[in-house]
């Protein structure tokens, strides 16, 4: 029997959301400062309006929703699922005011794409966007990559209480350290270290390619935020193609790899457990799936004959394969080239890579390596069981930082989430087909949205049907949160209508 939610349940959710909106207002001060420093007065006004509205709404919600009720698992899940919607709506205000978006829905799409680290964009005339707005696009991607709740855990919420309940809801169910706040802080430490290293590396690479040093550092910081957080935004409409530098693309590939690695594995490596890199089931499987999907893509591209030299095939084929597999979405091609120059086999390779994703507890989206490994090992266990004596007990292990004995409960959870992803990929593809797009291109774009990748074959444009925009927003949201907290939220809504009093 499901109980109808009480007013105090709504207040608990509202109170935490109020905190979040105030948090968005505080973070928006960073691009406001950037606008003031670079004398961008109109964008500064956009952020001032956005900050004022967020502060006002946030404080009103904090006052209206004050309650003594403690947060429980259901509240945690609902807070998380709504956090991403609320953050996108309030984060979209300065973007909409920039005049680079044709409607508020487009601005919300952009903000959700940023928070969910997808990277699909509906910005118009991106090349003339202000530094402040561009910084905001990349900053929300950085915040989304860490996880909005991780950000809140680090700065706003005290340990205990609802901290772990919300952390789990945000598709981060691994504790790197015993204390959840320390875990959140370690995630930040890794991200800041790579942000500094990536900014310097890319800054130097683009300076060598002829860009002024100050601008190089700004672009380096933006691209690093987008690459490490497997986002995919870039300050220019040509994305990474703009830089025309092999060195730049190579550094970018390494940053994308870093983003796809489990934070727990980063921790193990950083404290001296170097062997973990080749013992870990995720890094092993990641290497295998990259080689397999690149094989498909490379054969497809070789058959088209558009890249006749191995280095060019690698620069175009491998770059996009890694961009898709890690869920980043950076590109060195124009979107329509996928549809007009690449053949079906090469696109299938990228779609499979996008659908699989990187490691769990990383910044990538999609099914993720640990789940694929779990299901594969469970298959192996069942086959072994059939081949053995009836009374034999077959134990299957996998190594992920430590040896883990596979249980049915874990396999069931992994299989359910995998099934939800596959259904969601096809759901978006069918909607695309209904609007007249070819099936493979529709599947490409839908998988890109749901797996939070951001590669586009040209369907995502400001002129696409609004229904498709809403579908992609839903896919980005549900895919980033790995469905469970979104389903809990939907259940909460249903229980408000049909639950027992």
């Amino acid at each position, binding site marked *: 029997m499901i109980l109808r939610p009480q007013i105090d349940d709504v207040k608990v959710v509202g109170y935490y959301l109020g905190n979040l909106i105030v948090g968005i207002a505080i973070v928006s001060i960073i691009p406001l400062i950037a606008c003031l420093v670079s004398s961008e007065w109109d964008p500064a006004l956009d952020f001032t309006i956005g900050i004022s509205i967020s502060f006002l709404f946030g404080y009103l919600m904090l006052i209206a929703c004050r309650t003594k009720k403690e947060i429980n698992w259901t509240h945690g899940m609902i807070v998380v699922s709504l956090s991403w919607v609320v953050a996108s709506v309030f984060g979209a205000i300065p973007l909409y005011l920039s005049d680079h978006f044709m409607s508020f829905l487009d601005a919300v799409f952009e903000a959700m794409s940023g928070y969910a680290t997808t990277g699909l964009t509906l910005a118009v005339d991106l090349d003339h966007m202000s530094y402040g707005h561009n910084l905001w696009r990349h900053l929300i991607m950085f915040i989304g990559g860490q996880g909005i709740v991780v950000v809140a855990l680090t700065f706003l919420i005290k340990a205990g209480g609802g901290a772990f309940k919300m952390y789990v809801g945000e598709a981060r169910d691994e504790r790197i350290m015993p204390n959840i706040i320390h875990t959140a802080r370690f995630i930040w430490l890794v991200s800041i*270290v790579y942000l500094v*290293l990536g900014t310097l590396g890319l800054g130097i690479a683009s300076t060598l390619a002829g860009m002024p040093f100050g601008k190089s550092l700004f672009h380096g910081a933006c691209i690093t935020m987008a690459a490490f957080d497997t986002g995919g935004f870039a300050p220019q409409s040509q994305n990474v193609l703009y830089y025309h530098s092999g060195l730049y693309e*190579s550094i970018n*590939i*390494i940053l994308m*790899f*870093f983003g796809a*690695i489990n934070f727990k594995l*980063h921790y193990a*490596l*950083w*404290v*001296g457990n*170097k062997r973990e*890199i080749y013992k870990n089931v995720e*890094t092993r499987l990641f*290497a295998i799936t*990259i*080689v397999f999907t*690149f*094989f498909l893509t*490379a*054969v497809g591209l*070789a*058959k088209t004959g558009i890249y*006749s*030299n*191995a*280095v060019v*095939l*690698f620069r175009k*084929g*491998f770059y996009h*394969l890694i961009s898709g597999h890690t869920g980043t979405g950076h590109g060195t091609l124009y979107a329509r080239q996928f549809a007009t120059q690449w053949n079906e086999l090469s696109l299938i390779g990228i779609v499979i890579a996008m659908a699989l994703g990187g490691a769990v507890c990383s910044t990538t989206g999609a099914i993720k390596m640990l789940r694929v490994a779990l299901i594969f090992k469970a298959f192996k266990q069942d086959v072994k069981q059939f081949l053995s004596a009836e009374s034999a007990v077959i134990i299957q292990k996998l190594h992920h930082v430590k040896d883990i004995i596979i249980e049915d409960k874990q396999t069931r959870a992994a299989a359910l989430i995998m099934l939800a992803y596959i259904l969601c990929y096809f759901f978006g593809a069918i909607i695309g087909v209904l609007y007249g797009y070819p099936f493979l291109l529709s599947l490409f774009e839908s998988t890109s949205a749901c797996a939070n990748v951001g590669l586009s074959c040209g369907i995502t444009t400001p002129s696409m049907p609004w229904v498709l925009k809403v579908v992609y927003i839903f896919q980005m949201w549900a895919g980033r949160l790995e469905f469970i907290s979104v389903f809990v939220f939907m259940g909460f809504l249903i229980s408000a209508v049909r639950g027992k009093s």
Partner: protein
Amino acid sequence: MAKLKLKYFYDAAMGILVEIVYALVIMSACLIMGALILWWLK
């Protein structure tokens, strides 16, 4: 204490290096595979 901090820093730097080597190994393997595929299909 300073020695311990230096060890933490050293371990973290080595960890980052291991991650870079991991990425470079996969990149090299795919570059070679791409070259072989082109040679095979010519």
